[in-house]
């Protein structure tokens, strides 16, 4: 029972990373109809950003948590203005070529500079462990889980309680009609892309103290995140969050009981969901690509 609970907790923590990344992909897809294959690379850059701030400027975790997502948002907005917005009128294949190409360039640049080895990051805040009753758990990971939950909730409130959120949801559901009703949807595209990118960078900073920071870390994670997005429904915000945490749990518990299946279970689930509900659990048919 203790190992079950402990594994379930591990699952929730990695689910938090999935949820943050899937959330960014969902808002970007909703507003831009672009699947951002560079999302994993941005997560990796976020983690490297934290390492670099520590090594070169001596700025610790909390500074990184503030500065890295902000920088990523700005860089993301520049990227959107320079390249991404040109995709709107093109075949979706160009979307894949451009964003996947950006991911490969980022990975290889980092590999050139730092090699394939993992970079050490000093311990994050909250060293030690917390007594969770049946077992002790690393305090930092409890913090990560809490932070992921808070960010997901904040994004949800932003989308459902603010004018910008209403505009984003409306544009996601009916982009053309939203323009015909007097909303300049183009104005929101760049900030929304920056926001989604910042969420990925934030996940990267949160990962730096507890995961191996290397140029491949994003590529490893993003495959599972895409499965999460497909299962939750492309463009669906609740789908991204619920599927993110659920897949984290499924993987962790699969690891405990059927270790052989722990890596494949996600994709088996994805195949089943695609057969039964091609638009994903929370998706609507018109969202399907």
């Amino acid at each position, binding site marked *: 029972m203790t190992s079950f609970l402990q594994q379930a907790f591990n699952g929730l923590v990695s689910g938090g990373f999935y949820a943050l990344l899937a959330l960014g992909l969902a808002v970007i897809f909703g507003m831009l109809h672009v699947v951002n294959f560079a999302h994993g690379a941005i997560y990796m850059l976020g983690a490297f950003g934290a390492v670099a701030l520590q090594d070169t400027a001596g700025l610790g975790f909390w500074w990184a948590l503030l500065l890295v997502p902000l920088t990523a948002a700005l860089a993301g907005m520049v990227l959107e203005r320079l390249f991404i917005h040109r995709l709107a009128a093109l075949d979706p294949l160009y979307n894949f070529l451009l964003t996947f190409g950006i991911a490969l360039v980022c990975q290889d640049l980092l590999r050139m500079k730092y090699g394939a080895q993992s970079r050490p990051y000093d311990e994050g805040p909250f060293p030690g462990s917390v007594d969770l009753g049946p077992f002790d758990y690393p305090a930092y990971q409890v913090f990560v889980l809490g932070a992921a939950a808070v960010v997901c909730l904040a994004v949800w409130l932003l989308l459902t309680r603010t004018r910008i959120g209403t505009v984003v949801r409306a544009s996601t559901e009916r982009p053309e009609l939203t323009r*015909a009703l007097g909303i300049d949807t183009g104005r929101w595209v760049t900030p929304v892309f920056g926001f989604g990118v910042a969420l990925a960078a934030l996940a990267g900073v949160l990962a730096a103290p507890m995961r191996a920071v290397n140029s491949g870390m994003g590529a490893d994670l993003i495959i599972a995140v895409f499965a999460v997005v497909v299962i939750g429904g492309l463009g669906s915000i609740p789908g991204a969050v619920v599927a993110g945490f659920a897949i984290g749990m499924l993987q962790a518990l699969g690891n405990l009981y059927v270790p052989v299946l722990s890596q494949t279970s996600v994709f088996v689930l994805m195949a089943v969901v695609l057969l039964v509900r091609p638009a994903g659990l929370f998706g609507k048919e018109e969202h399907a690509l």
Partner: protein
Amino acid sequence: MSAHYDEAEVLRGVSLEVGAGEVVTLVGRNGAGKTTLLRCVMGLHRRASGTVRLEGRDLGAVPPHRRARRGLGYVPDDRGIYAGLSVEENLTLPPAKGASPWPLARVYEEFPALGERRRSPGGKLSGGEQQMLALARVLRTGARVLLCDEPTEGLAPIVVERIGEILREAKRNGTAVLLVEQNLRFATTVADRHYLLDRGRIAESLANDDVRQREHELLGYLGL
């Protein structure tokens, strides 16, 4: 005005005018180009040529969202309700920019059913309620021109009657209404003039009396 879909020419040299306080209907078979014409006026159709003027000013290079802000109110053929937005969010999404926008209180007074369901998602409304919401949404903005694509389609007679009242009231307030309509009886109760659109051309311009006298012939023509 002309418009294309890939190879096909959908509108060929259509020209029409709607005055303030006037209701004009477009009748025609499916595929005659009625919906495309409304989309061209709204600036949504990419492959269109010709000019759209609002009070003498050319809207040619004006993007759809600015056309809406200048007073065009669009009610698309599928009602255009956001399933994921609440009734109130649907209502308040378009900015109120016109000369005489309605306050929300007035919308709920005129449409009590929408007031009762202000927190429900738009997707949960009945077809009639959705049509009311679509009309209320453009009226709230104070639009001076209403572009309504088959607002009565598939609705119960009592709802159709209510839509007639709304359009007649808009007309009294000086709003110009361009209405796509297949229900000829209904059209004659609200409209001043009618255009018969046939394969992208205006085949005939009809007065209410023409439509009443030739109802049988026209219905046969429309395939109804």
